[in-house]
């Protein structure tokens, strides 16, 4: 088989074509292409896998088309709460963060946790504080605003339900 390879995903679910335009679909395809090519060229130059997956996920986090980083969905209180993890198969090193806000690239924070923290998993304000120690980039709320996501959220905001990022109307009950 291959002596190197990259695989990416941008989420799974009931992708409902009527929910988005040809322009959005092109944006999704172009970003997937950009991520795959970025990963491929790094691998071809001999870059190690853990650096490649970190970079490739950053490319996807920086796009408004995917539910991560910039394109993250809205929480019940109208903010964006993100989570990310990274793991190196060579030595089982791992880093992860959850319930973080205003972090431009949660995967970069997870990577810093892997490298610098001596822990595997940090959450919330503590994880954000750790990120600031290592100059992880933060963004204001407006950076994460996306009209499409906002409209999706408004539809179910008052309800006691939630929705996966690629679901039509299979909003599920809490609890």
């Amino acid at each position, binding site marked *: *088989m*291959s*002596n*190197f*390879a990259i*695989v*990416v*995903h941008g*989420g*799974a*679910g*009931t*992708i409902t074509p009527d929910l988005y335009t040809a322009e959005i679909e092109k944006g*999704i*395809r172009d970003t*997937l292409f950009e*991520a795959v*090519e970025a*990963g*491929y060229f790094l*691998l*071809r130059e*001999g870059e*190690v*896998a*853990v650096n*490649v997956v970190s970079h*490739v*996920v950053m490319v996807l986090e920086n796009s408004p088309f995917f*539910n*991560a*980083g910039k394109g*993250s*969905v809205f*929480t*019940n209180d109208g903010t964006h*709460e*993100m*989570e*990310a*993890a*990274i*793991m*190196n*198969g*060579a030595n089982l090193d*791992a880093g*992860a963060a*959850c*319930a973080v806000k205003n972090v431009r690239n949660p*995967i970069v924070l997870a990577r810093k946790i892997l490298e610098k923290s001596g822990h595997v998993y940090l959450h*919330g304000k503590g994880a954000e504080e750790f990120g600031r120690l290592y100059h992880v980039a933060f963004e204001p709320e407006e950076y994460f605003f996306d009209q499409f996501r906002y409209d999706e959220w408004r539809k*179910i*905001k008052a*309800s006691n*339900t*939630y929705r*996966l*990022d*690629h679901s039509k109307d299979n909003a599920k009950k809490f609890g």
Partner: protein
Amino acid sequence: TVGAVALDIHGNVAAATSTGGMTNKKHGRIGDSSIIGAGTYANNATCAVSCTGHGEPFLRAVSAYDISCLMEYKGLSLEDAANYLIHEKMKQDHLQGEGGLIAIDHQGNIAITFNTVGMYRGYRRSGEKEHIALYK
């Protein structure tokens, strides 16, 4: 949710996953993506895995690590392990897990497996062209 798995020329595999979670979530809900072994796992001896979909069943099934265990302890191929988890185990009544995963093993075999209508995905192997797809 977004994710990536890679095999480098040194024979290392790695996995990364990132997500904004669920629309309208509350009470500090987190899913499988950032839980090592559930949504993200990597081990040079077996594979690297990144999952996406309904986090709760993927958490409860410890999905990403399960793929590695099926390979390590039962000798399944990457593809057979991924197909069993997504198309059999996740279909069991007590899990009903909608979603999918991407995975790669230390020989460069890849698995892109999902039980939903679609999954945004792409891959490229050394010396080959890239593949991008959205629907089944």
